[in-house]
């Protein structure tokens, strides 16, 4: 558990490492998904191709889109792309950099799925078993069948238990042939992807290094600025809420003082602090009333409303005061002295 936490902390400390971590997890999830998937070739002439190619190509598309969905920076990119220009110019190079780095990371899980699928071979065997070259691999002396009949027989190659064409072409020969083609395709695909990745990574410093440094700095900046703004807004909301609630309770306590004309008792000094904190609400009935009115009639989102007599902000609309509002504490003090 501790080991996991340390690895987690290391990955989180650096934003890029964190994204690489997510990438790695998705790649592992992709390989695990393939192992757990119960591949079931239909062994019917036209269904085989659809099923095989579907399993080969549809999950990578889903994983690619999932890679974008799980990436926090997608909304940042969309925001930066769609915002009005305002006082700050937009740099398309930054947008391109952000998009490229997200797309590269999202590509890894699909590439892993396609490679694992091809290297395993089941999909290609299922999809292309009807196209096996029977003339070269099969038994030449076997009486020829019609095209449809041949397709029907060959389509059963992936399903050993029901295969009935051993005299035409043995199951093992056909499977070995197709698996060899599939693995060759798989390794070529892996080689191609790795070469592409290598070229993209190594040609960049040769051509556009200065532009790259600029784009990278400003894309980090946009990310940090957004996070800091969210933090500042949260802090502001917290202070806002605190003052709002304080005013609500003060309003309640003012109301109570106005309704019940409480005589201020001579509270002993050491309990003064606690009494002040209770804001005048000292019994169950009063507390229930406070909670009910909080639910039914929340105060307006306006921290300095006009102070009408008896007003406690409950029913006030949030209009800016036309005359300076009298501070509340004075009202409370006035009433409590009656």
């Amino acid at each position, binding site marked *: 558990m501790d080991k996991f936490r340390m690895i987690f902390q290391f990955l989180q400390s650096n934003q890029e490492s964190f994204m690489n971590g997510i990438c790695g997890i998705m790649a592992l999830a992709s390989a695990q998904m393939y192992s757990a998937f119960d591949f079931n070739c239909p062994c019917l002439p036209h269904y085989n191709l659809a099923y095989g190619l579907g399993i080969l190509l549809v999950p990578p598309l889903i994983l690619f889109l999932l890679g974008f969905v799980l990436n926090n920076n997608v909304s940042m990119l969309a925001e930066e792309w769609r915002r009005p220009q305002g006082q700050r110019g937009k740099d398309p190079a930054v947008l391109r950099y952000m998009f490229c780095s997200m797309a590269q990371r999202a590509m890894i899980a699909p590439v892993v799925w396609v490679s694992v699928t091809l*290297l395993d071979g089941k999909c290609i065997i299922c999809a292309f078993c009807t196209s096996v070259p029977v003339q070269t691999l099969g038994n030449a002396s076997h009486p020829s069948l019609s095209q449809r009949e041949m397709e029907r027989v060959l389509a059963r190659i992936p399903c050993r238990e029901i295969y009935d064409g051993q005299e035409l072409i043995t199951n*093992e020969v056909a499977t070995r042939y197709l698996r*060899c083609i599939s693995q060759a395709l798989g*390794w070529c695909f892996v080689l191609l992807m790795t070469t592409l990745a290598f070229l993209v990574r190594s040609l960049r*410093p040769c051509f556009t290094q200065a532009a790259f440094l600029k784009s990278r700095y400003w894309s980090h900046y946009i990310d940090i600025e957004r996070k*800091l703004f969210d933090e500042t807004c949260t802090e502001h909301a917290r202070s806002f809420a605190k003052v709002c609630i304080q005013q609500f309770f003060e309003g309640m306590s003012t109301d109570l003082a106005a309704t019940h004309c409480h005589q201020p008792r001579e509270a002993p000094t050491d309990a003064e602090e606690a009494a002040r904190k209770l804001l005048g609400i000292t019994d169950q009935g009063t507390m229930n009333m406070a909670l009910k009115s909080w639910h039914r009639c929340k105060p307006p*989102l306006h921290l300095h409303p006009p102070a009408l007599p008896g007003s406690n902000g409950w029913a006030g609309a949030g209009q800016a005061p036309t005359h300076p509002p009298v501070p509340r504490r004075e009202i409370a003090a006035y009433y409590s002295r009656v």
Partner: protein
Amino acid sequence: MDRFRMIFQYFQSNSESVMNGICGLLALASVKMYNSFDFSCPCLPQYNMAYGLGIMFVPPIVLFLCGLILNRQSLVMLEEWRRPQGCRKKDLAVIRYMFSSIMQRAMVAPIIWIIVTLLDGKCLICAFSDSVDPGKFAGFANTSLVQVHQLLAKVPCKDDELMRNNTARKAVSRYLRCWSQALGWSILLILIIAAFLARWLRPCFNQATLMQARHWSNYIDIEQKIFEETCCEHSRLFAHKCILHFFESMQQEIKLHSSSLPKERERAEEEDLLQGITDQEKVNKLLRTWYYEKPPLDVSKVTQR
């Protein structure tokens, strides 16, 4: 747990150690990949050689490229090589040192794959089973040429119906595996002797130049890292100032509009933090302004105040 943490910190502290760690991981991944790969020889005359040699040589190329991609120092070296001279001279010895260290590390995983392949033997049996001399083996001596090639091509497939009861198949298989393992061990021995000699004899040649090259290559690496960290710190401070400036300008706008508020009003500490933004309208206005008119990327007005 403590030991793991120490090891982890040690690896992180030194970038050479990190690269050695990656190199080791790739080597282990190479062995694991070979074990989990389902080798299935096609057992057909022309396909065998292509498949066998393909499996022996294509994955090492992939592992080599992966070793180059995952190594951070290769980017550093390329940047150093391609940068404009500017005020700092370029030292080719440093670039050569970096290149050779990158190459050495990237070669480890491919070599391990090739050696494991040779010591296991399946690839060579598959690739060369139809190139052996049939006269050496009793079971194949009396068949026609075309048939013998077909038969030999099926040697790697033990379960094939023609090969199931063929005793000569095992002879061919053993013969090829023997060659394969001999080749594997020889390559391993040659490489280890070469590495041993290189490490022992290196101090005899140009030790001072080597130490300088190593020092400056470490320096370039560290300088890059610190530059990136400083940029991150800087953009954080920049963003902080920019946002503060934005909130203050909103506050000033509000003060201008509601200048009739008494100045000596007693304000709680919490309200200070609110910076004058005290109702829903103002908050909405602030958020709207943030979206529609982000402040310019210029905090010089703030710092000059």
